């Protein structure tokens, strides 16, 4: 009995080893599957490489200090993206300050405190999932009707940021809940057993343990929001803004400026658009870098 189990285990190990290292005993199905996933990866990587290459090729000659110091102009020689870059960064700051706390708070409540068997909790959960599937332009229409006109906020940066925040809520809530769920129940039980209150357990144990997952989810949501155009055009973002934005001023953001430049007939603006794309990419990559740093910094093994 014991010997038979050992033989079977050894055989299983051999076959696992063989399929991992790959040369012998690989079935045709496995070969096709491996070829398929490698092809899929290649498609993604090659298109990314081509995109990056063309953008860098077109944009690098225009990536100069003027781009960062000047406002937009119809003269490609002096056109810059300063107001748009500042607005995009300010937008990210407002999103971090408003949408993230709301989203993480909602997720913590739903996951750790809410009475899960109540119908209204289930209704809220269902709605959050539905919210994630709503096209962004609908958020724009909501923002126009409710924030810009209804509350009389006007077409200002704050209105745009709030609507993008609303749009990123479901992504962050769902990711945060997954991260909280991944924290083993034993951590909570251990804390409770030592006499900690539920709040203390969540604040000192569960939440820090979930930070890597929360950070990843937050950055995903934030990155999407920063690259968004449609809802902002709906809530009245302008295309030409020459002054530095504030919370309650008119504004334009990088994706809108890029769209605007690409439409212009002069070839120089195509290069400028590519340069602005590089700036947007660097902002997004830096944000991703922060998330990865946080994940590594706080990652724990259970």
């Amino acid at each position, binding site marked *: 009995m014991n010997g038979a189990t050992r033989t079977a285990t050894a055989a299983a190990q051999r076959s696992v080893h063989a399929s991992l290292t790959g040369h012998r005993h690989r079935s045709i199905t496995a070969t096709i599957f491996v070829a398929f996933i490698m092809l899929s990866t290649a498609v993604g990587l090659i298109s990314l490489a081509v995109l990056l290459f063309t953008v860098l090729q077109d944009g690098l000659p225009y990536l100069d200090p003027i781009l960062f110091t000047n406002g937009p102009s119809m003269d490609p020689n002096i056109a810059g993206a300063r107001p748009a870059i500042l607005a995009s960064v300010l937008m990210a700051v407002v999103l971090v300050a408003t949408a993230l706390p709301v989203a993480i708070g909602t997720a913590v409540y739903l996951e750790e405190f809410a009475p899960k068997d109540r119908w209204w909790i289930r209704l809220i959960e269902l709605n959050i999932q539905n919210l994630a599937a709503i096209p962004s332009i609908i958020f724009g229409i909501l923002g126009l009707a409710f924030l810009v006109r209804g509350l009389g906020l006007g077409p200002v940066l704050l209105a745009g940021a709030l609507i993008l925040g609303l749009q990123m809520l479901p992504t962050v809530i769902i990711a945060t809940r997954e991260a909280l769920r991944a924290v083993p129940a034993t951590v909570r039980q251990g804390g409770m057993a030592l006499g900690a209150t539920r709040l203390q357990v969540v604040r000192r144990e569960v939440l820090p343990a979930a930070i890597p997952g929360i950070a990843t989810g937050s950055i995903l949501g934030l990155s999407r929001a920063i690259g968004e155009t449609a809802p902002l055009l709906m809530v009245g973002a302008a*295309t030409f803004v020459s002054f530095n934005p504030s919370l309650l001023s008119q504004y334009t953001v990088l994706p809108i400026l890029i769209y605007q430049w690409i439409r212009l007939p002069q070839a120089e603006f195509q290069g400028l658009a590519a340069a602005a794309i590089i700036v947007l990419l660097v902002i997004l990559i830096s944000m991703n870098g922060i998330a990865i740093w946080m994940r590594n910094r706080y990652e724990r093994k259970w």
Partner: protein
Amino acid sequence: MATRKTLITIMAIGGIGAALAACGGSSRDGGTSASTAANADTSLSGSIVIDGSSTVAPLATLTAEKFHATAPNVNVTVGTSGTGGGFEKFCNGETDVSDASRAIKDEEKAICDEKKVTFKELLVANDGIAIVVNKDNTWASCLTTDQLATIWGPDSKATSWKDVDPSFPDEALKLYGPGTDSGTFDFFTKAVNGEEGASRTDFSPSEDDNVTIKGVEGEKGGLGYFGLSYYEQNKDALNLVAIDGGSGCVKPDTTTVQDGTYAPLSRPLFMYVSDTAATRPEVKAFVDFYVANEQTLTADALFVPLSPEQAATMKTEAAALAG
């Protein structure tokens, strides 16, 4: 380990990007800074909100930029919601100036009346629609409006140049045009097919006229249309087609567009100024600035300037604005 490597890679990419941004070899000399002019008027302040046609936007943007140099404390923003979208905001009192590539429609005016928004209509520039074909197209140097209707009519079955005129070669007809939301599309369909929005639908539409340029450039049988300014920026890539509207072939240029002989594909462009907004000195100053510099502004924005009569009419209208 793997994640650390990812982190390092990402930081390296970010670092390279930042380094390139800091010391990239610029192909631009920076030109002369337009930030402040010598005769800058710092007593004016406030903000001017402009929205509307994306066709007029380059002109409005250029005017805003130059005006900002003379009045640095006035913040001017230009949006591109389209002519119709612009009027919607304008009649709701949300914008001060509305750009339009056509005159305001009666139903739009009715909404303005309802909201008690009164305005002056300024004809600010002329625009011509250029019909372009491929460089290798040797047969279509002039098309009649009937031939255009044969090509673009809503029921058009023309798939080859031979279907347009029996003397043309049997080359596949590839059509490019602006998206159905654009003022150019509205104007072209009205002028060629007699009804706004009436067009065959099996062409490649794009809001980006560069797509049309690239398309026609790459197809021997290609044909497309867009604003004359786009052609002037890409003269070497495409052939311009003269149009026969009943009185001989006319090529679009400043004179023929201004005097309307390039019929039916030349049109006026408008800015609508709200009377309420014009009571604010900065808005009035903006309008006056345009009136004073109209010739250079239209030329720099690649539009066809106003004729002396048109300029005189605009001056009268602008003077009628409460100030």
